[in-house]
């Protein structure tokens, strides 16, 4: 397994390199809420969380400076893209070109502070550079504009408070607290009750332990990948501020997540509707890297076992494409469906997305135990899929991603590292 994971991580790194633009990582985005298939330029969103944390982890595990150089490159993307008001340029992932993305800017701060912490621990003065970038965002955006006195808002103009977004903020607060020595307890005291409010507490409900995305209002969707992000943040909180109540909440979330992992449907299910119906479409593939991280963090405390971890790792490894990338999901074309995804994926399913693959990259990087052989070459791929009910072929190599209709007519072609597709006829 170790060699297989190492190889997968190396191929993910190669794929991430293929997605670079001089200003950062680029590419189309597919997501539950909406997709950004037209604007494909570099964005400073949560992709930098997994990229930075993954590269830092690999450097710390292997002591190979290649991985640190990769992390520094990502840190420089962010530094160069910071606006005078502290926010990051084009940070809104599926929403497209827009600053102020949540929890994206928080996740960027997590990545930056992981890098700063590693550099500081290694006695490298460059830590101050990346710390200062994150600090400006934390103080000027999160504290001044999003904090309402009890929790962090979805946006300064949107009073909704979302538990999973607050949990991502909690992750950077823990790193910030460790680096500055300043207590962040005031913020934790606001965020933890919000998480309680969002967690399904009814033991008879199929979504028991899961986190409801409060932004889904009356639909009350309990979403797996977001629950994972909350659980990881709570485990981290517990590690810094040992309170059994934090861990117990996270363990309940872990049990909820275990139920969502589906080898048959090649990923982890979306979650549950308010009435307890399981949402099978989409079954997330690369985003499940966040669940893998949660499992790895929960394992020392029970609830999650090696068997659970291995089952998810097997799914992720088996889904990796020869390009090094990974599909996003199965069933995005039947969004919200309660039956298994169709066998032939939608274009948005098969589309590898930097801001999802970073999560698998980070999750697998946590499992790397030895230096990585980086000689394996990636290969082009052709995968049958559908678009609007028509059979198509997805074609990808190191330089482009394309969608061809049955007659080989190109209806989408994106040259990697550019702001827009060359051909858009979807």
């Amino acid at each position: 397994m170790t060699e297989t994971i190492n190889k997968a991580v190396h191929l993910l790194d190669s794929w991430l390199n293929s997605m670079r633009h001089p200003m950062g990582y680029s590419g189309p985005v597919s997501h539950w809420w909406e997709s950004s298939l037209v604007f494909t330029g570099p964005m400073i969103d949560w992709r930098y969380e997994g990229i930075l944390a993954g590269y830092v982890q690999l450097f710390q595990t292997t002591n190979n400076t290649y991985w640190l150089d990769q992390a520094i490159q990502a840190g420089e993307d962010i530094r160069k893209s910071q606006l005078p008001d502290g926010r990051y340029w084009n940070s809104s992932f599926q929403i497209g070109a827009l600053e102020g993305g949540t929890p994206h800017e928080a996740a960027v701060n997590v990545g930056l502070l992981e890098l700063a912490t590693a550099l500081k621990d290694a006695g490298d003065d460059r830590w101050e550079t990346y710390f200062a970038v994150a600090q400006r965002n934390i103080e000027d955006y999160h504290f001044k504009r999003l904090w309402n006195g009890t929790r962090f808002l979805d946006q300064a103009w949107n009073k909704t408070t979302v538990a999973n977004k607050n949990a991502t903020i909690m992750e950077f607060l823990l790193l910030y607290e460790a680096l500055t020595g300043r207590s962040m307890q005031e913020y934790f005291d606001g965020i933890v009750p919000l998480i309680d409010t969002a967690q399904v507490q009814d033991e008879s409900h199929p979504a028991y332990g899961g986190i409801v995305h409060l932004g889904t209002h009356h639909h009350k969707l309990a979403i797996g990948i977001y629950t994972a992000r909350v659980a990881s943040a709570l485990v981290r909180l517990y590690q810094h501020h040992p309170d059994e109540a934090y861990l117990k909440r996270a363990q309940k979330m872990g049990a909820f997540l275990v139920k969502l992992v589906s080898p048959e449907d090649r990923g982890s299910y979306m979650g549950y509707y308010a009435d307890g119906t399981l949402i099978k479409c989409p079954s997330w593939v690369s985003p499940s890297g966040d669940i893998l991280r949660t499992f790895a963090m929960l394992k020392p405390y029970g609830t999650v076992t090696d068997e659970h971890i291995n089952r998810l790792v097997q799914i992720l490894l088996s889904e990796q494409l020869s390009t090094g990338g990974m599909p996003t999901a199965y069933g995005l074309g039947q969004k919200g469906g309660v039956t298994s995804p169709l066998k032939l994926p939608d274009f948005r399913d098969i589309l590898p997305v930097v801001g999802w693959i970073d999560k698998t990259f980070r999750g697998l990087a946590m499992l790397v135990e030895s230096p990585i052989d980086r000689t394996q070459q990636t290969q082009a791929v052709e995968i049958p899929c559908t678009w609007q009910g028509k059979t198509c072929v997805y074609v990808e190599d190191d330089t482009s991603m394309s969608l061809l209709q049955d007659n080989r007519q190109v209806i989408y072609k994106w040259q990697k590292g550019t702001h827009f597709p060359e051909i858009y006829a979807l």
Partner: protein
Amino acid sequence: MSSKNLPFNAIGMEVRYSFDMACLLLYQQRPENVRIYCDNSDLARAAVRRLGWVPGTIYVDSELIAVPLRDIPNVSIEAADNATIVDAALFLFTREQYDAPPSAKTVVTVVDNRLSYKQLLYRKQVYDVSLSAARWLEETHTITRRVGLFTPPFLYKWTLAQYFDKRDSGQHFQWGQRAMDSIYSESPLWWTGYLSVICGVQRGVQQS
């Protein structure tokens, strides 16, 4: 800031999807520089977010518009004057204020459309007509692409999504996605959309 009172803001769905398409059509012509015709700094900023690939200068209507845009990394912003000559022009809900298209190789215009359902809802906040904009551009340019947004097929699906909102979550999300999948229309009825994006290339100039 704006001379218009549009029924949406610069980060709303209307702007995001129409500006994405407009900047895609500009990008495909690879202009060296671009002039944005817009008197609203928020809308101009929304366009510049999508123009990071422009190698030369992005010109805007005035210094008042230019100043707040100068914090944007990796782009050069200048105020245009009457002598400014550009490769490409981008009109953001301002087309009807100009008698004729400018002498730019590429012109892309984002327009709202009185011949759409929005006229019923916002009678005094819909200013242009898609077909008029197309005729205006055709005077000097060859139209290469016309894209309607929020056309009747989109509205039909969106309405169903709203109908199911409190009745059936699964149907709500599925119809919502079907609507979004048809947000862009290049069918013969493109001009019935609430918004449209029209691209023209100056006659005699080879298309990219």
